């Protein structure tokens, strides 16, 4: 896992939740591209942050997560997508459900919420394999403990530290029932992660009585990194 801080001259700014396409061109002209969610909050400084998970059999991520050096140039297209976005004016309360690197676009929303000094209450349920796999762990610790109005709940599905007294299974209906705002409070819900996690969570939330139109999903699928 690696976060890339990119200077993008002429960058028009983005909305929290949008992504960019990164295109790589080989010496022989072969081109390939992948989409990455922007993890930084919108800003006007022509900079953005991508967090890239290295997939060993991937075409793009080993380069971005490994070989790329400070000063190297990348070809970007974006910002892309106007559906999976949150802005302070949309209000809340907010429920974020993330699996693995699905945290990235949700992190942009949480960072925007902080930067805009929004007081909309937010809860994050974040599933990782182990504590070491929790992306932005320090930042999430701070967010969840500073009276910022953000509650962070981690679930570790594969491996837990000996002292762990938190959740330790995959996201399921019972967990969502315990964590989610009651449907009557009409939370805005964003779910991002691997396709099976997103489908399980979205279906469970609908069954718990949440309005499908207030549940936005972003599935990763077999993207091939």
């Amino acid at each position, binding site marked *: 896992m690696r976060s890339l801080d990119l200077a993008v001259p002429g960058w028009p700014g983005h909305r929290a939740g949008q*992504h960019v*396409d990164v295109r790589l061109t080989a010496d022989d002209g072969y081109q*390939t591209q*992948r*989409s990455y969610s922007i993890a930084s909050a919108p800003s006007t400084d022509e900079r953005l942050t991508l967090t890239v998970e290295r997939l060993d059999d991937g*075409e793009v991520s080993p380069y971005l997560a490994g070989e790329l050096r400070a000063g190297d140039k990348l070809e970007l*297209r*974006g910002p*892309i*997508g*106007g*559906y*999976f976005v949150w*802005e302070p*004016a949309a209000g809340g309360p907010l429920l974020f459900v993330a699996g693995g690197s699905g945290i990235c676009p949700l992190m942009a929303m949480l960072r925007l919420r902080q930067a805009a000094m929004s007081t909309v209450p937010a809860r994050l349920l974040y599933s990782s394999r182990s504590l070491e796999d929790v992306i932005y762990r320090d930042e999430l610790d701070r967010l969840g403990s500073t009276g910022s109005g953000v509650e962070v709940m981690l679930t570790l599905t594969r491996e837990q530290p000996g002292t762990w007294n938190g959740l330790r299974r995959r996201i399921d209906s019972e967990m969502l029932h315990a964590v989610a705002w009651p449907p009557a409070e009409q939370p805005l819900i964003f779910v991002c992660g691997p*396709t*099976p996690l997103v*489908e399980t969570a979205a279906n469970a939330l609908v069954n718990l009585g949440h309005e499908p*139109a207030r549940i*936005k*999903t*972003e*599935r*990763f*699928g*077999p*993207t*091939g990194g």
Partner: protein
Amino acid sequence: MEMHEQQLRLDGNAAAGMFEDLFVHDVTSARGACAACGAVGEMGAQHLYMTPLSPGAVLRCTSCGGILMVIVHAGGRFRLALQGLVWLEMQDAAVAGSG
């Protein structure tokens, strides 16, 4: 079979880049009506079937599974088949962004 299909499924949002090649507007936040069942929803919320090296994508209705849109990009052309959409409604770019 069921598992296989589920693993391949994405959200229409994942086609945002391809839509931008075809339309000036952002199509993921555009609303449309399914010709098969009449359901109305944002294109970004529909089910998308696409893999990184495939020459196109199929967008299906989340309510009934009917095909809304087929996009093929091959041979230097885009072909867009829209037989499954009764209508598609986009934000006027001159008005968008003011909220």
